[in-house]
């Protein structure tokens, strides 16, 4: 386990910090210009409207590469850390303040690279994919604001900064999912995504409140004299149940953003957004922010909160995989696959496989972006074919309408296959390394705590299903006979370079070679994550909680023992999954329909996503919330306001009685009723002129009269 993180603090801005500020601000600038002038630029030439977003993100990529090279190649120091901090919100008492700032360590450098790289490729991909859209410039504006928010999220040095950018990525996600808001499904989906995330954010916000109120700061690392959250937790200022609650609260944010059960429902619907958006936001970067958050708060997690995290993640990995195997919409399969893979990462963090989980985040970002963009390439081709056929009813995303496409879209096929191998855990691909490390971690955890044997079962079960449903996509989409001959014939050639280049780059990064080699031996042997440069740089941070520290030290004994069995089992399950899908969808010696019937209720549940959405919509929203609202609105109108009106009526009634009394009793006695009433009436008629000027004058006179009366 590494020593204390070096507190390399810069009083002036280091070069890396300066670069990161530019990386952050350029997309924001691009967004602002784009949102104001985009339409006019697009009117001149659509390409004109993309110059600024492209410039912003590609220079961001270049600068990220500089930072990455500096940290990863030059320094190669697991403990490197640079922080820049400024006070942002000040209170009446000086010791209480909220600061914002930038933190750059290896994790940030790698995340910067991942975000700017995939964002750049998606910018490129979209140029062709979104061509001809009337809101083309708006799309690039939204991509820019997303890049800004996501980069801010990974650069933030405090929980408060994280929360702010967390919400902003939520906004960008909302805008991009609802990009085609004319479709009711898209309008529903963007609202659902934002609100579901807000539920998680409430927990996260409360977690932040606990931390801030107890330790008085939200900055994670210590900066010079002022200690950060890690250090203060280590000193025991926040401990025990409150720390567990804070950890679980913060994790709630990750449940929302990383689409973990039970808040996973928004992610499949988010596929209503344009496919490049799905690749960038809902596969590679934003949804991984939850994992990133948990990694950042890892040093302050207690064993109890880790257990919650492990179970939520493990269950989600398994649960989402069981849904993915029965879906027919290519993007839906990938969406559930993303949920499942995010579950892996979350489980990895929960069982203490910190480096492995973050490793999987990065490898997953590459191959899942590739898969999504690949599906986008297929959909793009299908869409064009259908457009030529004037067919507006056939679903271009339904795999039952595809088949045999490998002949028409060879590059898409090749890259898709590589990425599929990576996600399925085939040796010599990146996913094999990272997934294997997580599975080994879960196995080690269950070896040391045998009562939690279910965690590796979830893990390996999900791995089996992942191999199955991913190759199911391959067979159904690219192999076999074309299901719809007329569509197949209408697809003439592979998509242009703007689409295929990003695919090739991402597929290239799905090989193990980029991640594994530290020395030539492991380069050849390949299948071992332990010597990877990645795991050297992303080493376990210093744990601030004593119990967790013990737990992890205890686990370390089992990790080596678990490694070989985990590798063997994951090879077996991956092979089984691939074989099963081959027999069922390619060779057709096993009938998918028969198996569906044989599974009976399980198949129905999986196909209908366990009716979770229906439960939320019908029971919680329509059944509970909307009825409660109507009840309260009724109460407000009828009871609360009713009392007010009743009081008014009673007052009028009483004054009428007293008026009658006045008229028939008092006036009779005075015997001057006729005159006084008429006089009063005349006076009042004089006042009711209907002219505002007069009302104004009376108002002023009245006030003066009132004043005079009081003063006299």
């Amino acid at each position, binding site marked *: 386990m590494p020593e204390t993180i070096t507190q390399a603090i810069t009083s002036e801005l280091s070069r890396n910090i300066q670069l990161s500020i530019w990386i952050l601000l350029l997309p924001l600038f691009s967004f602002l210009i784009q949102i104001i002038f985009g339409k006019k630029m697009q009117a001149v030439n659509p390409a004109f409207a993309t110059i600024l977003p492209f410039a912003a993100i590609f220079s961001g990529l270049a600068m990220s590469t500089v930072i990455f090279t500096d940290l990863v190649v030059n320094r190669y120091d697991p403990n490197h850390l640079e922080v820049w901090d400024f006070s942002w919100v000040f*209170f009446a008492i000086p010791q209480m303040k909220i600061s914002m700032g930038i933190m750059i360590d290896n994790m940030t450098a790698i995340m910067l690279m991942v975000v700017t790289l995939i964002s750049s490729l998606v910018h490129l991909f979209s140029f062709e994919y979104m061509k001809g859209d009337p809101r083309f410039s708006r799309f690039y504006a939204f991509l820019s604001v997303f890049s800004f928010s996501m980069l801010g999220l990974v650069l933030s040095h405090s929980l408060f900064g994280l929360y702010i*950018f967390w919400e902003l990525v939520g906004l960008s996600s909302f805008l991009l999912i609802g990009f085609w808001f004319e479709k009711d499904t898209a309008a529903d989906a963007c609202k659902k995504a934002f609100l579901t995330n807000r539920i998680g954010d*409430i927990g996260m916000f409360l977690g932040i409140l606990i931390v801030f109120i107890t330790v008085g700061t939200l900055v994670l690392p210590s900066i010079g004299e002022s200690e950060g959250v890690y250090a203060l937790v280590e000193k025991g200022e926040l401990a025990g149940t409150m720390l567990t609650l804070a950890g679980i609260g913060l994790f709630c944010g990750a449940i929302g953003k990383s689409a973990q059960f039970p808040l996973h429902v928004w992610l499949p619907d988010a596929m209503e957004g344009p496919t490049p958006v799905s690749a960038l936001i809902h596969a590679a970067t934003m949804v991984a922010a939850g994992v990133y958050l948990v990694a950042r708060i890892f040093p302050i997690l207690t064993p109890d909160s880790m257990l919650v995290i492990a179970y939520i993640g493990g269950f989600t990995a398994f649960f989402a995989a069981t849904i993915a195997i029965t879906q027919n919409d290519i993007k839906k399969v990938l969406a559930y696959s993303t949920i499942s893979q995010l579950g892996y990462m979350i489980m990895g963090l929960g069982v203490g496989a910190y480096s492995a989980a973050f490793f999987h985040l990065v490898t997953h970002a590459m191959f899942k972006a590739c898969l999504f963009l690949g599906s986008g390439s297929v959909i793009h081709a299908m869409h064009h074919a259908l457009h030529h056929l004037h067919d507006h009813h056939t679903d271009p995303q339904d795999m039952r309408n595809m088949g045999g496409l490998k002949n028409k879209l060879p590059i898409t096929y090749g890259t898709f296959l590589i990425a599929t191998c990576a996600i399925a855990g085939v040796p010599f691909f990146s996913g094999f390394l990272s997934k294997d490390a997580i599975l080994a971690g879960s196995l080690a955890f269950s070896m040391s705590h045998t009562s939690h044997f279910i965690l590796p079962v979830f893990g390996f079960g999900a791995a089996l299903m992942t191999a199955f449903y991913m190759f199911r996509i391959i067979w159904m989409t690219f192999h076999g006979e074309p299901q719809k001959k007329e569509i197949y014939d209408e697809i003439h050639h592979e998509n242009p370079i703007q689409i295929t280049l990003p695919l090739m780059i991402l597929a290239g990064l799905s090989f193990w070679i980029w991640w594994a080699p530290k020395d030539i031996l492991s380069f050849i042997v390949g299948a071992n994550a332990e010597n990877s440069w990645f795991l050297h740089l992303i080493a376990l941070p210093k744990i601030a909680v004593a119990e967790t520290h013990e737990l992890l030290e205890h686990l370390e004994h089992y990790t080596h023992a678990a490694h070989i069995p985990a590798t063997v089992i994951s090879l077996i399950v991956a092979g089984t999954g691939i074989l099963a899908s081959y027999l069922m969808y390619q060779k057709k010696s096993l009938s998918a329909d028969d198996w569906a019937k044989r599974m009976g209720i399980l198949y129905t549940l999986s196909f209908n996503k366990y009716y979770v959405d229906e439960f939320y919509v019908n029971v919680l929203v329509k059944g509970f919330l909307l009825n409660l609202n109507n009840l309260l609105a009724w109460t407000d109108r009828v009871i609360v306001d009713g009392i007010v009106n009743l009081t*008014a009526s009673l007052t009028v009634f009483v004054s009428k009685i007293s008026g009658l009394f006045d008229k028939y009793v008092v006036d009779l006695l005075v015997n001057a009723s006729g005159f006084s009433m008429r006089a009063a009436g005349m006076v009042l008629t004089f006042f009711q002129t209907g002219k505002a*000027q007069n009302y104004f004058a009376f*108002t002023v006179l009245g006030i003066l009269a009132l004043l005079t009366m009081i003063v006299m």
Partner: protein
Amino acid sequence: MYHWELNFITFFPIVGALIILLPFIAKEHAKWIALFTTIPPFFVAIMMYLNYDIALAGINDANSMQYVINFPWIEKFNIHYSMGIDGLSYPLIFLTTLLCPICVLAAWKIDKMPKGFFSLFLLLDTGMAGTFAATDFFLFFVFWEVMLLPMYFLIGIWGGPRKEYAAIKFFLYTLFGSVFMLLVMAAFYIKTGTFDFFELMAKSKEGVFGTFEVGGFQFWAYLGLFIGFAIKVPMFPFHTWLPDAHVEAPTSISVILAGVLLKMGTYGILRIIYPILPEATQYFATTVAVFGAINILYGACCAMAQKDLKKMVAYSSVSHMGYVLLGMSVLSVNNPAGMTGAVMQMFNHGTITAMLFLLVGVIYDRAHHREIEGFGGLASHVPVYAGFTTFAFFAALGLPGLSGFISEALIFVGSWSTYPTITLWSVFGILLGAAYLLWTMQRVFMGKLNTEMKHFKDIVEISGREKLTLIPIGIIVLALGIYPKPMLDLINASVGRLLEVVNPAVAEQVSQVIK
């Protein structure tokens, strides 16, 4: 040195009102005169900011008030014409002077008796500015009442179909509250012989009002004043005048009503009740917090159930003013976040809700109805209008980067340490807030464009004048969301002092520890 600024801000509008009323002024010119008499006060307010000393706290110390004007007015009763500002009142004076010209622009198309409308509006402006500037209870009360009458006529004459009902309800409800205020003011005077805020505070500290006990003088004085102000906030269950008044009022009056008038309730509580009756304040703090939470949740739930766009926004005000109540119920000297957030939220709600009402006005002017279900898909038809609305809605739901987020977050930071359970409930307000706003947004702007909607041909893109009303507010909302320091600097000293005044014992300890 003689300070003229507050006099100018308060009375310059009334000069305009009198000019408008001159018989030879054509009614087409009324709006121009109104515009030119509301803009200079805004610049004077900016000038005041530039020379404002943020180190001075004000609150209970007459010497650290700024731009003070003080001379005897009715000597027989020891009534002074005294004005001054501190961190508590300045943001609201700024808000008033900002919103008034905007409201004149928003009312540009009024063609029913414009002379009457604008002269009453300017009188209202005087009342509002005076209320925030006054440092003498009697003067405060006079301005408070000055504001009431023009409001009554502005709703009652220029309002919608049920304007008479709404106007009389507003009038009687507020009057009902001011009666209590008047009684307490008189009682204070009888006990102390002064109306001056600072002298009242000093006398209260000396123990003129006796010690606090349930059912004693302070107890009843607190309740009397509090009900008067709570009606204005409006606090549940005294809030039902608000939706009616808003639905019937013309756009610019709604903006003033929600943007400025509601703040008078919370301002009055902080300016008068807190420093004069600190013990009662301590005693009732938890109750205020509970009512704050009720406002937040109840207002949000009611907002979600509304079918009328303007009513929805009106209930969102109920919800958002709940945050102010919650924040100001946190009386901890060690954690000023809640109070800071509350004072800031008063300003931020003023700007954000002003945008919301202006936007509702824009669509109402075109469609002549406000049924949420009667629209649909407008984002593709009027994209710029949709863009402005999206901005305002996200500001209202507390998106980071926009000003509402900071005040709401600060309020929760404050309330969590004192009332964890109440905070736990209130935090759901941020979910419900997002729910009703996004749901409304979906029904009005998203989906397929509903070309069958009423007056579809009249629904055209937002005009330059309307943009002019929204952009200045939008800039402030954005600027304070990104960089709240100027606002916090303004209010910090006063908030700190206010908390010390409310916690005399604790403040004593703290200062000894520091020594």
